[in-house]
Every structure is written in C-alpha cells, then in structure tokens.
C-alpha cells in the first residue's frame, strides 16, 4: 500500500487491465498528449501504442457507437466522454444500443464496454459542465452504474468494470482526481454491487455518493460528539447493495441520502423508496434526501456553493432527522 491520487489510481487500473488483456483499448478525445479530460490516460499511448489508445475527432456519437460495435465483436472498449454533460450528444448509442442490444438479441451478444466520464460541480464551469446525471443511467435497464469516491475504490472498481461483460457507466468526479488515499498495488478488485461502510455509527444512516462521501464524512466527524453517523457509500448504483443500507437503517432507524445531483428525481429518491419499502417498521423518522438544488448549475461561486450540499447543510440535515417533530 502507498498513497496515490484518484487519477493515478485510474491510470494504474487502465495500465494493469491493458497489460492483462489485449482486447482492452481506450477511445475518446485528447487521450494521448493530454491524457483525456482528467489525465487518467496519460502515458498509455507511449506504453501500449497508439492503436490501443485511440484519440478521436470530436464525434461522440461516432466513437461511442464504434465502441459498442467493437464490444459486440469481442473487444473490450473503455470509452472516455470528456465531461458527462456531453453524453447528451451520444445518448442513443448508450441508451438505445449498448443497454439494449444483448437483451434484444436474446442474449446472443455481450457488450463488455466501459464508459468513463467526469461529473459534478464546484469548479465554476456552469450549467453545461457540472451535471450529475447518474439517475438517467440507473433508470436504463441494461446499464451498470459505478461512482467511486476514493482512490482505492477508483482502482478496484475500474478494474472490475473493465472485466465485466456488461456495459458499465463509470462516473468520476472532477474534484476527486487530485485527492489522495491508500491504493493497493497490483491486482485489486472490488466487486460491482458491494457498498462500503466508510464510517460506522448508530444514530443515523447516511448514504452518500462520489464527492458527497467526503463531505459527509467531514460532517459526521464534526458532529461525532453529539450524533453517531454511519456513512455508507454504495459505490455502484446498479447493482445496488441495498442489503448493506437496509442493515444499517434497521440499526439506526434513520436515513439521510446525500447526493450532488439535483434532488428532484435523483437516485436518492430510489434509495428512499427501497429502504422505506423494505425497512418501514424500523424507521424512526422520515428518510430524507439532501441533494443539489433543482437548478442548472450557476457559474458564480457563491451561487454554485448554494446549489451543492456542503458540510454545514449536511450537518443541518442530519440534525433535522433527530429533531423532535
């Protein structure tokens, strides 16, 4: 074990999987010199050759389509969409093709495809560069959805995603790339569908994803003397490790979901639905979602800050769960 950044962990996962399996190739914009939007693919063209690191024209529909078709014929493409906001120009290839081809063919094809992208706000890049649309993908049968919050998870989950025989949407967060953590060297796999209790606790179950895991952990730490918060990161939304969440809620009786995506219709609502249905009798107060504002992300920093859950608003939300009605 040694410290590594989230982006380095991604890079390592790519290197290991490309070395392990010749059918893995990378495709996307500016992958070579720039290393893609985050730097995750840096050095890979030198290492594995330009034929395995395919820098494309600015044509997402074409190269995502290419990846889907390549997966149908036995390759294992790892696509990068520079920002997940741009997925709107290649939705068809993901929603109507990648997600459905196996089922529509009666199981005759497998689509071992990973679509990596970065989401999230906090960098004043405004409404078209700050979205968190994981709920769209989670609502599309046939796609797996992964959202790593730590460097180690980034590595372990990306390796598993690449080995998975199904299309996986792998959503990174732009403010996580530089964050560091312990990352196991070499072979390290985290199965898709396995949540992690990032902090144990007994008063409140807090389920958080991506960057919100860190803000939630900070909030939990700050109020640790008053309230004991169990922080769970599902890590993958599809498949969802609902058992882990349910077990915690049965213990605490309280649920808060913290997500950066706007609250209305976000994946938090789905977690609330599942937990409410499956743990109704254990609930001591109403489950709650603290999510982003129901607004396009504004540019100006104070406005943007107001749209994203922050440590203080998370603490408030936790407290409100325990407040007498």
């Amino acid at each position, binding site marked *: 074990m040694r410290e590594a950044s989230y982006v380095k962990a991604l890079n390592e996962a790519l290197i290991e999987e490309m070395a392990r399996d010749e059918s893995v190739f990378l495709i996307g914009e500016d992958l070579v010199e720039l290393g893609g939007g985050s730097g995750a693919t840096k050095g890979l063209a030198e290492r594995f050759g330009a034929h395995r690191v395919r820098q494309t024209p600015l044509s997402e529909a074409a190269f995502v389509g290419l990846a889907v078709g390549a997966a149908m014929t036995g390759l294992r493409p790892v696509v990068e969409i520079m920002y997940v906001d741009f997925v709107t120009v290649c939705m068809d290839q993901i929603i109507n*093709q990648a997600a459905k081809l196996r089922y529509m063919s009666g199981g005759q094809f497998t689509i071992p495809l990973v679509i990596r992208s970065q989401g999230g706000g906090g960098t004043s890049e405004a409404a078209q560069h700050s979205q968190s649309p994981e709920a769209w993908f989670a609502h599309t049968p046939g796609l797996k959805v992964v959202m790593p919050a730590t460097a180690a998870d980034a590595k372990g989950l990306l390796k598993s995603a690449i080995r998975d025989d199904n299309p996986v949407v792998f959503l990174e967060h732009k403010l996580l790339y530089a964050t560091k953590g312990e990352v196991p060297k070499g072979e390290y796999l985290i199965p898709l569908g396995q949540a992690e209790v990032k902090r144990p606790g007994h008063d409140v179950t807090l389920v958080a994803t991506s960057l919100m895991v860190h803000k939630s952990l900070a909030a939990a730490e700050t109020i640790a003397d008053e309230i004991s918060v169990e922080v769970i990161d599902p890590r993958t939304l599809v498949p969802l490790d609902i058992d882990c969440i349910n077990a915690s809620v049965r213990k605490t009786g309280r649920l808060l979901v913290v997500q950066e995506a706007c609250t209305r219709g976000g994946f938090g609502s789905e977690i609330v639905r599942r937990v409410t249905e499956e743990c109704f009798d254990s609930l001591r107060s109403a489950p709650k979602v603290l999510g982003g504002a129901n607004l396009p992300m504004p540019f100006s920093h104070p406005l943007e800050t107001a749209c994203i859950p922050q440590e203080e608003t998370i603490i408030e939300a936790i407290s409100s769960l325990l407040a007498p009605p």
Partner: protein
Amino acid sequence: MKIAPDRLREMLRLMYRIRAFECRARQLFEENRLRGSFMGALHSYEGEEAVAVGACVALRSDDYILSTHRGHGHCIAKGVDVRFMMAELLGKETGISKGRGGSMHMFNPALGLLGGNGIVGGGIPLALGPAFSAQYRHTDQVTVCFFGDGAACQGNFHESLNLASVWKLPVVYICENNQYAVTTPAHESIAVANVADRAAGYGCPGEVVDGGDVLAVYTAVTKAVQRARESAGPTLLECKTYRYQAHCMVIPDRRDPEELARWREEHDPIYHFEQYLLDRHIMDEAQQSELNEQVHETVEEAVTFAEASPLPNPNTVVEHLWAED
C-alpha cells in the same frame, strides 16, 4: 465481372426468398391483426431485393452487416434461416432473438449479422465498431452498413463517414435510397441530388448505383469490399430503389400510384434479373419454376415451424439481460 452461373442462380433464389417471405409476413400480419393479436411494426423490403442480395453475395460469411428497421432482406441475403425469422415475427421462443427482438431486431453472430435497428441511422455509428475491430485484430473482415435516405439526414452519418475515412476503416456504407422516409420525399429532405455526392466531403469514393440491378449492386459492392479489405478505407454507395409497400403495415400509402406502377413495371429487380438469366440461358424456365417452388416451400415450412413453436414463458422474461445470467 464474371460470375459463376450457380452463384447467379443463388442470387435469384435469395431475391425470390425475400419477396416470398415478405408477402407471407404481410399476410400473417393481416390475419393476426384481424384476430386482434399484435405483431408490432412490419416494414416490407419488397422492391428492394436487389440491394441486399447484390451486397451480401459480395461478402464472406465472416464479414459483418448492420441492418435497419426494414431489415428482413438483409438477414435473408446474409444467409439467415427463415424459420427463425418467421418465428421471431410471431414472437416465439424459437425466434432468432428468442422473441425479445421482433422484426426490427434480428441478430446472428455466426453470420456476422449485428442486428437491425429501431432507431433510424442507429446502425451507422455501430458499424464503425466491427470495422475497427477487424482492423484491431488484423483480420481482413469487412463491414457493410445499410441505411435509408432518411437515415442519411441523421448527424451520425456525418460523424461516422468522417471517422471511417480518417481511420481508413474497412466499412462499406450502402444508402438504400427508396425515395421516401415514411411520407417525406427524399428531395424534400436532402439538399443535393445524390447522397453519394457527399462522399467527396469525406475523401472517400461515392457512387450512385441502380438499386434495381442486382449485378450492378454486386459489382459496386465487390469493388468497395476489395478496397476495404486492402485497408484503403470506406466507400459510400447509394442504391436508388423503391419500396412496393407502404412504409409499414399500419401506415396508409398515399404515394402516386402511377409512380409505383412505373417502378414495378420498369424496374422490378426480380423480373429484370429473371429475364437476364433466361436470355443468357443461365437458367431455363424449368429451373426457374423449381427455384420458385423451393422458395415457397421454404417459406411455408418457416410458417409451419413458427406457428408450431411455443411462445416464451413470461417467467423467463428477465433472462438475457445481463451477461452473467
């Protein structure tokens, strides 16, 4: 181009088979409709047989094709057993896609049939995938992508032709210009006289082909396939053709009846080719009748097979979604 007599007769057989299959499928649809049982949308390929046959006969069985919503002809020409197609139309478990796909979603990996598509133009970017895959794996397989005049107005046409050209992918794009997209005439949709003229904008060859002449199609596709196999890149062929039926079974046909009559009388691809074979004594009338009978038998067998086959068990509905299943 010198073509062996066997092969020529085989081309006619395939054209007969497509026409017979389509006629019979329409009948079944009508009967079922009267009984109140749905068969979804059915897009007849009658009138366009020379395109699929001319193109697919120019391919090896390990070459790939991407088909469309009007795809029965492509499947038959690529060698699919019509029993499984007919069973699919009737939604049977023995169907080519186990009843999950239906008319627009027929697949056969062994024959390189990578599926029809319900999204117009949906196959255009997908076709880059098998082409890329062949290049990546150093095989000399070629991919043929069929699409309509309507599909030529989709943005992914542009992205894909360009990318295929820049990367010299072994793909042949075949526009089946049957003059209409549902009720919209091509000349109201396409700013130039020929879709093929757009090839110049992608630095690849483009050619207008008489889509009613199976030999013209065969010749043009053979040349384009050759080019693709030699790593010289894509070709755009535009086959001018005409569909004999309404856009699909549920839409009234309001095209000019004289226009239709003119195409049927002057350009029927089957009649034209029959005469050619008879005139040149490649086939005599006895052979012709035999061919015809065989084809009708094949199609009747398919109907019998399909009707005798069981419907899928609703309890199996979740099967074939995930690769782990």
